[in-house]
């Protein structure tokens, strides 16, 4: 359905830099200045332009900037999704990190982080580890902030070695994550 732009640089394993946003507990007023459209568009691998309409299942294993219209599901698992200011999404979204400037109608699961920019209009339920909401963003739905996730458990398991105790921690965290879904 969509493919990388040929003129853009090859994708690294994690081309989406951690945005310079405040910690999730910081109030909206403390948010760092939002990146310009051009900046974050250049930082992601794939780009769906504002005239593109996609109906169906959208999945991938790279970061995506979406400024068009999507109806269905979006699944990027370990990658980032940026819904641009012109983006109109009517879909369930699953990604590692979701940044919304445009309109989304559907549930959003951002495993690590969800960020609602000031122009965002989101109708749906959010499940994430951390959320940043800029002043002016509109949310109609619920927020479920999960303090533990698979990612953290993986990191813990990696740092603790491949011992049995870390494997147990990973399983425990996964169970916890699934329970909340």
């Amino acid at each position: 359905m969509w493919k990388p732009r040929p003129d853009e640089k090859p994708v690294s394993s994690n081309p989406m830099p951690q945005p310079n946003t405040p910690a999730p507990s910081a109030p909206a007023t403390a948010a760092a200045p939002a990146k310009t459209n051009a900046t974050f568009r250049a930082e992601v691998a794939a780009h769906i332009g504002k005239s593109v309409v996609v109906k169906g299942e959208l999945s991938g294993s790279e970061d995506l900037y979406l400024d068009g219209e999507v109806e269905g599901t979006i699944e990027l698992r370990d990658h980032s999704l940026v819904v641009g200011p012109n983006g109109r999404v009517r879909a369930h979204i699953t990604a590692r990190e979701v940044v919304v400037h445009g309109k989304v109608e559907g549930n959003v699961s951002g495993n690590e982080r969800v960020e609602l920019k000031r122009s965002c209009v989101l109708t749906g339920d959010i499940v994430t580890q951390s959320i940043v909401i800029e002043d002016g963003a509109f949310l109609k739905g619920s927020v479920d902030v999960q303090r533990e996730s698979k990612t953290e458990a993986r990191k813990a398991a990696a740092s603790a070695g491949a011992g049995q105790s870390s494997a147990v921690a990973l399983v425990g965290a996964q169970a916890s994550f699934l329970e909340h879904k």
Partner: protein
Amino acid sequence: MRWFGGSAQVQSKPAVKSSTGQRSSRRSTGFTEFTRSLAGYKDLSVLDLGQTSSANITFLTQFGGRVYNEDILRDSLDPSYAIRLEDGSPSLDGEKFFAENLNYPENHFDAILCWDIPDYLHEALVKPMVERIRKSLKPGGILLAFFHTKDAGPDSPYCRYHIVNGDLLELEPRPDFRLQRIFNNRHIENLFKDFASKKFFLARDNIREVLVIR
């Protein structure tokens, strides 16, 4: 939650003025009591009826569970709800409004933050909203509402409430709405007559805080 069925107008953010005034903070005894009551819950389910506030979501998610946000005052501005009564006066279509808003299962919430929404909401929506809220609260669930004790004109602007901590709120004046009415004690008693108990706190700034238990 409405899914894919709403009109484009409803999905879009109704146009409101964006300029805001200077924020001020106020201590709230009602909110302190409200916060205390949340401490014992497991898998808390809270509904915030004010404008989306990062601070509120951050504070309320500390208790665990899920925080719901629905800005019904802003939703009520949607022109698709506007109707004309027989005498030609403008009103809102309550049936349509509540078909698309505040649609939650019965006995769903442990707590609801109503803020001062009833003071600013259209007359046609106030009583149905309270009834809808009552049903969605669990028995024993708690609701916090604020009511102005006098119409101070520009001194009683509509405010966004941001939670600073367990007893301090930050008020951000918004020019979007005008006070619609003043509820006196009797009106408030009547409004929440189907609830189990009501507790009033009168603050110095002409705000009556009411904690209601279903």
